[in-house]
């Protein structure tokens, strides 16, 4: 069953068109990656799903429902949780408060404060510390934990490996693999091919706001990587 479906969308910030006729699908329980260099419009795909970027053409549907004109708070209610680029840990809130904020939608599911603490024990140890005082890797755990608190059908991660040491990225990959095994669909927007390779089953390559290639990850050629992803 298709969970997220983008059909020929044109997305804009103000008058600037960023996405040109983008189509992609994410089925329930699958892990899909969007690859591409900086500035090609990867984050705009997330923002189009959240209603932050304006979709003027095409259709964005989630669980069969048109969400192209929604506000950013309704995406979470529909079942889309986002781990945003740069993590966006809310300043002034403790780790626990940041997690509770993620549970604002009150969707039923396996993820609660205790189960998130079980997944990331370090967050329990530092529950009363300001979220912004955590290390980069711990902040990433917090951002993922916050997204899980919404018990989403689709977890969208925007450049989660950005700024993290390779050993932390390894841990992140294991976490995402474990989440994928629980049946949570994952849309991974990433430049780190090592992470993509360990998590995703299918991929889309974005270039200059358009999808230029798509397929199973096993079939992704070095040539494509060099042309559209490697810096």
């Amino acid at each position, binding site marked *: 069953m298709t969970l997220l479906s983008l059909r020929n969308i044109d997305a804009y910030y103000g008058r600037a068109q960023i996405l040109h006729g983008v189509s992609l699908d994410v089925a329930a329980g699958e892990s899909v990656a969007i690859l591409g260099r900086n500035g090609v419009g990867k984050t705009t795909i997330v923002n189009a799903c959240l209603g932050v970027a304006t979709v003027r053409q095409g259709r964005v549907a989630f669980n069969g429902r048109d969400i192209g004109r929604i506000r*950013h*708070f309704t995406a979470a209610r529909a079942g889309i949780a986002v781990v945003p680029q740069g993590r*966006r840990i*809310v300043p*002034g809130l403790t780790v626990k408060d940041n997690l509770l904020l993620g549970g604002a939608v009150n969707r039923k599911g396996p993820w609660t404060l205790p189960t998130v603490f079980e997944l990331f024990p370090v967050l329990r140890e530092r529950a009363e510390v300001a979220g912004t005082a955590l290390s980069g890797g711990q902040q990433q755990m917090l951002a993922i934990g916050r997204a899980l608190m919404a018990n989403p059908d689709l977890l969208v991660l925007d450049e989660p490996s950005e700024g993290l040491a390779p050993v932390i990225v390894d841990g992140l990959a294991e976490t995402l693999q474990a989440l994928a095994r629980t049946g949570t669909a994952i849309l991974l927007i990433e430049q780190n091919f090592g992470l993509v390779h360990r998590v995703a089953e299918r991929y889309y390559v974005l270039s200059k706001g358009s999808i230029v290639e798509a397929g199973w990850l096993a079939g992704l050629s070095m040539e494509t990587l060099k042309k559209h992803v490697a810096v």
Partner: protein
Amino acid sequence: MLIQILNGLVYGGLLYVLAVGLVLIFGLRRVVNFAHGSLFMIGAYVGYTVTAVAGFWAGLIASVCVLTAIGAALDRFVFRPLQDEDPIVTMLVTFGLLLVLEDAARTIWGKEFLTVQPPAILSGVVHLAGTSFPVYRLAVIGAAILVAGGLSLWLRFSRVGLYVRASSVDPLTTGMQGVDTDRLSAMVVAIGAGLAGLSGTISAPLVALSPSMGGSILIDSFVVVVTGGLGSFTGAFIAAMVIGQLHNLGVVFVPAAASMIPLVLMVLVLIWRPGGLVKAGA
């Protein structure tokens, strides 16, 4: 000296109740609300009108209710439609509202100064350190402490309080978690306006009511908000108490310079800490 300190606490308390509404509105809507002084003034007049027919407590409740409703309307019909505009546009609109509300008050209640008597239960004096002090003034200090404590508990321990704290520093991320930030902002602007009504009504027995009464306290309230740190509730409380004391001591000891003292304090604090005493969200 004790009396001067208590009077400073009274003014600081009034300032806090008014300024915390500005903090709430700025935090959620990023609006510098010049109309807030007029809301204080309208609150005082509504309190005066209802007090005349149904007593002080009915006036107090009516004022808070009417101003809360005005705040909700202000958010729905002014702040929300203008939220994507340049902040200067919204600021100018609130300045225009200030003038409109002042004229409306002048038309409805006239130019003459009006007075409100404190309720009978609070009309006596207490004897402190060999001198007397009005019970009503002590009650104003108590009301400010109740508002500060209540707001603090609400913000710290309730779900909605958590969303308000989060949205006041990062509304986009808060919205991404499923919080309807528009409804939250409407509620917070309504509460902020209701607090302006409360502040106006409890100040009514202490000052003479006039359509321009919101002007001077609005300036001191802005000084409180900026000195405390834009968007900081704790900072607003500290700054209100300090400015209340300085204002009052200034009136007693250097009356010619009294109105300048809060502004000088604000400049000194901003030189020392450009973000104000306490960071937003605290």
